[in-house]
C-alpha cells in the first residue's frame, strides 16, 4: 500500500520536473546574454575589418553569431550606434553619449556579419568594457 503511494508521488514529481524543464529550458528558455558571455575572440577593429574585407566567407564562419571583444577608436556616434575606425558599426541597447567620440574603447558584442552597403562589420547587443 505504502509502496504504491510512494511510486505515485515519485511519478507525479517526475512529471512536474519534466514539464518545468520543457517549459523553462526548451520552450521558453532564456535568450543569450551577450553581456555576460565570455568573448570567443579578442582583436582590434582594424584587424576584424581587414579579415572581413579579404575573405568574407571564412570570416563569417569564424565570427558570425559569436561574442567578440574589439578595441578601436570611436569615429561616429549616432543614437544607440557607435562606429569604430569607420569600419565596425556597433549597436547598443541605449543611446550613447556624444562625449565618447574620438576615444579609444573596448567593447563586447555579437557579430552579425558584413554590411556591403555601408562596407562595415556589424555587431549587436554591445556593451562597453572600458
Amino acid at each position, binding site marked *: 500500500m505504502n509502496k504504491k503511494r510512494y511510486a505515485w508521488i515519485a511519478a507525479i514529481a517526475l512529471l512536474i520536473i519534466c514539464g518545468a524543464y520543457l517549459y523553462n529550458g526548451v520552450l521558453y528558455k532564456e535568450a543569450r546574454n551577450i553581456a555576460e558571455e565570455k568573448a570567443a575572440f579578442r582583436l582590434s577593429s582594424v584587424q576584424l575589418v581587414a579579415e572581413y574585407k579579404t575573405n568574407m566567407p571564412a570570416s563569417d564562419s569564424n565570427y558570425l553569431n559569436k561574442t567578440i571583444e574589439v578595441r578601436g577608436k570611436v569615429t561616429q556616434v*549616432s*543614437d544607440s550606434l557607435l562606429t569604430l575606425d569607420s569600419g565596425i558599426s556597433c549597436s547598443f541597447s541605449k543611446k550613447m553619449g556624444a562625449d565618447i567620440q574620438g576615444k579609444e574603447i573596448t567593447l563586447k558584442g555579437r557579430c552579425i556579419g558584413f554590411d556591403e552597403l*555601408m562596407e562595415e562589420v556589424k555587431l549587436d547587443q554591445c556593451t562597453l568594457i572600458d
Partner: protein
Amino acid sequence: MLKNKLPLLTLFLLGALSANAQKYITKNGNVKFEASVPSFEEVAAESKSTSAVFETSTGDFAALTLVKGFRFKVALMEEHFNENYVESDKYPKASFKGKVDDFDASQVTTAEKTVTITGDLTLHGKTKRVSSTAKISKSGAAYKISGSFSVKPEDFGIEIPKIVSKKVADKVSVDYNFLLNKQ
C-alpha cells in the same frame, strides 16, 4: 588635345560629385515582420540596424539587413528562424534593390506623399520582385521613408514544416521605417 578635354572632364567630375551629394543613408533603419495567426503565439521579429541608401537624383533605393539582427521575443523561435527557416549561417543577408517610381525630389515636402517602390528582394539565396506602397516625407534635412509589403516564405524557398504551418501565416507582412540623412 588634353586641353580641349579638360573642361569636359572637370564638368564630368563636378557632375559626379553633385550626384554623390544627393545620397541619403541610414545605418539604423527599422524593419519588422510578422506572420502571426490569431489565437496562436505571436510570430514576429524586429531589426533596428538595417542599412539603406537613397539616391534622390534618381529615386534609387537599396536596403540591407543582416538576418541575425532580427530579434524575437521568444528565444526558441529566434533559434528556429535562424537555423531551420532562413538558415542565417548560410545566408546571412537579406537585401533590397529598387526604385521609387516616378520620383521627383522637388515634390517632397514635410507632408507625407504616397509612392510605390518596386525592386528585387533577395533572401535565403532567392530573389523575387516585390512592390510596396510607401510614404515619403522630409523631416528637416532628412528623408523619411516608411511602408509595408507582404511576401510568401515559399517564394524564397523557405519551407514551413506541416507541424507548425497552422501557427505561421502563409503571408508574412513586412514593415519598414527609415530616417535617411545626407551622406
